[in-house]
């Protein structure tokens, strides 16, 4: 390896001259509870409708109303949809943060702002577009209450003009967003037009950013990960759902309730083919899922870190009593209450071994909304196949933000209900022993209350293969050894990793979950900036597939990239790997609560590879200190 100095730079952009097409990020700074979400989603969808790859991320406080919120849209012709640190185009709607927001921009960035904020007095190296929002909205709407909500649509109109976004697509997006409320559509439409007209008459385009039609999003959908997981759960045939509200997972069950009520009511009787309970806490939520799973239902719960902590004892019961259940962990920043509205991958280790004793759990790691859907379906099959809790490890960034995706395919495989005892099996195996390893795969047969098959007593205390209470050393050991065999067998049933081997690469990269998107971009940066070729292994499940070891073996150094402080996935891998392979592993860690970005990865890899790198700006400036008064 010959370390060299590389000039690390973003794509060369000369502000003020030329045009930057489909490659920039817009940030809208507002106050939460001000109804800006509609305007932001309309903006996002209209860019998407113009065929340009796009992503939207909401950076919000743990609070109901009145605190600063930032919505960032990244449009990128190359399909990079991870967060990027630099903001090219700011819409400053929040008087509280406007100054700081403007100060945090790179020179040459553009800013649309409320005239009264006089941001042009703060610095002079930006492109300023002052808009008299109050005056404009007064002409649209007389109702003072409504004004506040509709006001935001004006900046959409201004941006449509400045960024050359097709106004028709904005109108389509607006219809989509508010279609069921014709009055609201009309009012917002007017605001849109007023904004557009104002920009048309008053602004000369002085920034380089424009959106031009492409054909990269045809046929695609826009959705949040939580909604995708909800659709997956419904298509998996979930029948019992128990949950307790917590950000960022609440919208998973809330969306699921909506879908179930629309699509899972028995036509003949008008009754529900599902039961949803808002439980008294997460202990009860998992208890209900475990009770339902034991009684034969496809049962689930959804939560985030604090809830997972509470679920420990039941997770252990599910593992040892061998009861299927699906748990969605939409991870947020810990420890403790942590940063409830920020993203992390910090529950990997605690979930892998959740509960006391020799407990281990199956985990799935979706990295896209498409995988939130497909892994939700898969999780229910795995839970019943292996008669154990299965954790679907998503995160706030995936769960609550809006992502592009190909439409979800209809499940091809029928439901896999696993080894449920029936007459024929009973005849074949002779006497029923609930925990007997009849097939040699560690997975026993189970009967279900009410099915008229022989009953058994399920318990979290010691038991033998006949499900009788036992404290005998050999019974205990045989049982937990079988559980270990079962876990080992699950390895090859877990979703396969996505592997890209580059024959010239001596460096490997391992990532999982939402980190994937920044990795895709970073690998291109490494190649472009330092001619560093890399191979890539994306983990999709735990226990790891055997392919993990062979991937590491092919490379001299392997960077495990994740969004936590302690390198949790790397630690988990160490347990499976030979010392020679462990020595090849390095960590790239990102744990500010903001979604990981490509630049951070690239810089860290380059530094660890011995390059000298000018560190780019830190993220701290984006979130003012006073924003932290929430907590949930």
């Amino acid at each position, binding site marked *: 390896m010959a370390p060299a100095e590389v000039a690390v730079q973003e794509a060369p952009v000369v502000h003020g001259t030329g045009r930057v097409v489909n490659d920039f990020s817009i940030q809208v700074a507002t106050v939460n509870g001000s109804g800006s979400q509609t305007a932001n989603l309309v903006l996002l969808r209209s860019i998407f409708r113009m065929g340009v790859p796009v992503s939207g991320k909401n950076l919000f406080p743990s609070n109901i109303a009145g605190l600063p919120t930032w919505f960032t849209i990244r449009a990128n012709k190359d399909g990079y949809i991870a967060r990027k640190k630099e903001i090219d185009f700011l819409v400053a709607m929040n008087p509280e943060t406007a100054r700081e927001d403007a100060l945090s921009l790179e020179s040459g960035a553009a800013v649309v702002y409320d005239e009264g904020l006089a941001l042009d007095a703060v610095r002079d190296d930006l492109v300023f577009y002052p808009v008299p929002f109050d005056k404009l909205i007064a002409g649209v709407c007389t109702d003072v209450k409504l004004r506040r909500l509709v006001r935001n649509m004006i900046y959409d109109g201004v941006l449509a003009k400045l960024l050359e976004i097709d106004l028709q697509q904005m109108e389509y997006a607006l219809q989509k967003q508010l279609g069921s409320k014709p009055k609201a559509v009309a009012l917002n439409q007017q605001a849109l037009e007023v904004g557009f007209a104002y920009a048309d008459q008053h602004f000369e385009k002085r920034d380089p950013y424009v959106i031009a039609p492409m054909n990269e999003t045809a046929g695609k959908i826009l959705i949040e990960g939580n909604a995708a997981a909800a659709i997956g759960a419904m298509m*998996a045939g979930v029948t019992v759902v128990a949950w307790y509200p917590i950000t960022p997972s609440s919208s998973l069950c809330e969306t699921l309730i909506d*879908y179930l009520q629309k699509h899972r009511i028995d036509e003949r009787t008008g009754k*529900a083919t599902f039961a949803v309970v808002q439980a008294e806490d997460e202990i009860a939520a998992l208890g209900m*899922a*475990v009770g339902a799973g034991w*009684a034969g*239902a496809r049962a689930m719960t959804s939560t985030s870190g604090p809830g997972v902590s509470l679920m420990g004892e039941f997770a252990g019961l599910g593992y040892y009593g061998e009861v299927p259940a699906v748990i969605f962990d939409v991870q947020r920043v810990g420890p403790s209450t942590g940063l409830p509205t920020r993203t992390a991958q910090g529950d990997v280790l605690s979930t892998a071994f959740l509960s006391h004793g020799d407990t281990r759990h199956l985990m799935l790691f979706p990295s896209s909304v498409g995988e939130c859907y497909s892994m939700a379906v898969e999780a229910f099959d795995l839970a019943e196949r292996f008669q154990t809790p299965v954790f679907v490890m998503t995160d706030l960034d995936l769960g609550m933000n809006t992502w592009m995706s190909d439409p979800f395919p209809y499940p091809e495989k029928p439901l896999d209900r696993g080894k449920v005892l029936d007459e024929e099996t009973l005849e074949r195996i002779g006497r029923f022993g609930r925990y007997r390893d009849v097939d040699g795969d560690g997975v026993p047969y189970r009967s279900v*209350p009410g099915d008229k098959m022989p009953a058994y007593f*399920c318990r979290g205390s010691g038991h033998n293969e006949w499900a009788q209470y036992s404290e005998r050393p050999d019974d205990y050991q045989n049982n937990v050894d079988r559980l270990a065999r079962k876990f080992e067998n699950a390895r090859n049933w877990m979703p396969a990793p996505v592997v890209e081997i580059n024959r010239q690469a001596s460096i490997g990269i391992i990532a999982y979950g939402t980190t994937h998107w920044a990795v895709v971009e970073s690998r291109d940066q490494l190649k472009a900036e330092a001619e560093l070729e890399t191979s890539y292994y994306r983990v999709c499940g735990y226990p790891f597939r055997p392919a993990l070891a062979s991937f590491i073996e092919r490379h001299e150094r392997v960077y495990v990239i994740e969004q936590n402080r302690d390198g949790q996935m790397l630690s988990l891998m160490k347990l499976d790997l030979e010392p020679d392979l462990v020595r090849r592993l390095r960590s790239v860690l990102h744990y500010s609560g903001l979604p990981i970005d490509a630049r951070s990865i690239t810089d860290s890899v380059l530094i660890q590879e011995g390059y000298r790198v000018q560190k780019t700006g830190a993220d701290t400036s984006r979130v003012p200190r006073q924003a932290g008064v929430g907590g949930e």
Partner: protein
Amino acid sequence: MAVATSPVRKKVNRIGLESREYRGSKTTLCAGCGHNAISERIIGACFEMGIEPERVVKLSGIGCSSKSPAYFLGSAHGFNAVHGRMPSVGTGAMLANRNLVAIGVSGDGDTGAIGIGQFVHLMRRNLPIIYIIEDNGCYGLTKGQFSPTADLGSKAKTGVVNDLPPIDTCALAIELGASFVARSFSGDKKQLTAILKAALSHRGTAMLDVLSPCVTFNDHEGSTKSYAYAKAHDDPLEEIDFVPFFEDISIDYEPGTTQEVVMHDGSKLYLKKLDADYDPLNKVQAMRVLQETRSRGEFATGLIYVEPVKPDFLDVLNVVDEPLATLPQERVRPPKTVLDDIMESLR
């Protein structure tokens, strides 16, 4: 059931089962433990009511009491969950299959301490379940510490005096919406059997607090949960006669002396009043009698409160009549057109 070979035909119930078919494995609890007597009463009540064991799920938390489901209805499914969390497991099981008969057994520690949160919410939901607290005022399994139902001033075996007031689980259950609330004593065979049979006829949460002395840690002088104390201070509200729906018996009584309550399945309860005007359909009176007997240092037993017709949790959730657990794929996985429509709406 044909028993041609046997000259002595054993007594069978209405579904052709013998009493022994309701037994479980041999108890491992202490000889004389109240919990064993309650198991016997459950066996008797289920036998007499002709309950199909394969429809029963036995649920419990952790404790000596929570072990007892292993000692009755051996051919029924059972789930010995974690400490204090039987209500959630029972809720899940009943949601999965509403045709099951859920019998839950808990202890006063399992319910009143670690499990009070789940207990409270179970009562609110009126889930169809029989919830039995085997109440000995102490933690038997962890060797005799006070539980939250121990009376103020009651003395532990070690001589320590309890300095906190008790939780009255019956008052709590009534307050929270349970639709069948009774208190009994493991030593009162007739009353407990009648109450258990009535509970099996009820649809909704039947909460039974059964005084069940712990002979090993809480049966001494100075304890208010000993056999001697229970016998001396048991204050029955009524004499209960239970006539199941499948028996054609009518009981004559003098007007004004007895109250007749028709249960969900058509069974009838005849409550011969011992206390002048006690009416178990009256919530306010129920709460008052609990307070009054307690202030006299006694405990009222019998059917304390009943609301024979009240929507249960499954009605409230409007769940289909068939068990959710076994609905076929075509009823739980929406067709492709549904997914396609959802996808279209997201473009």
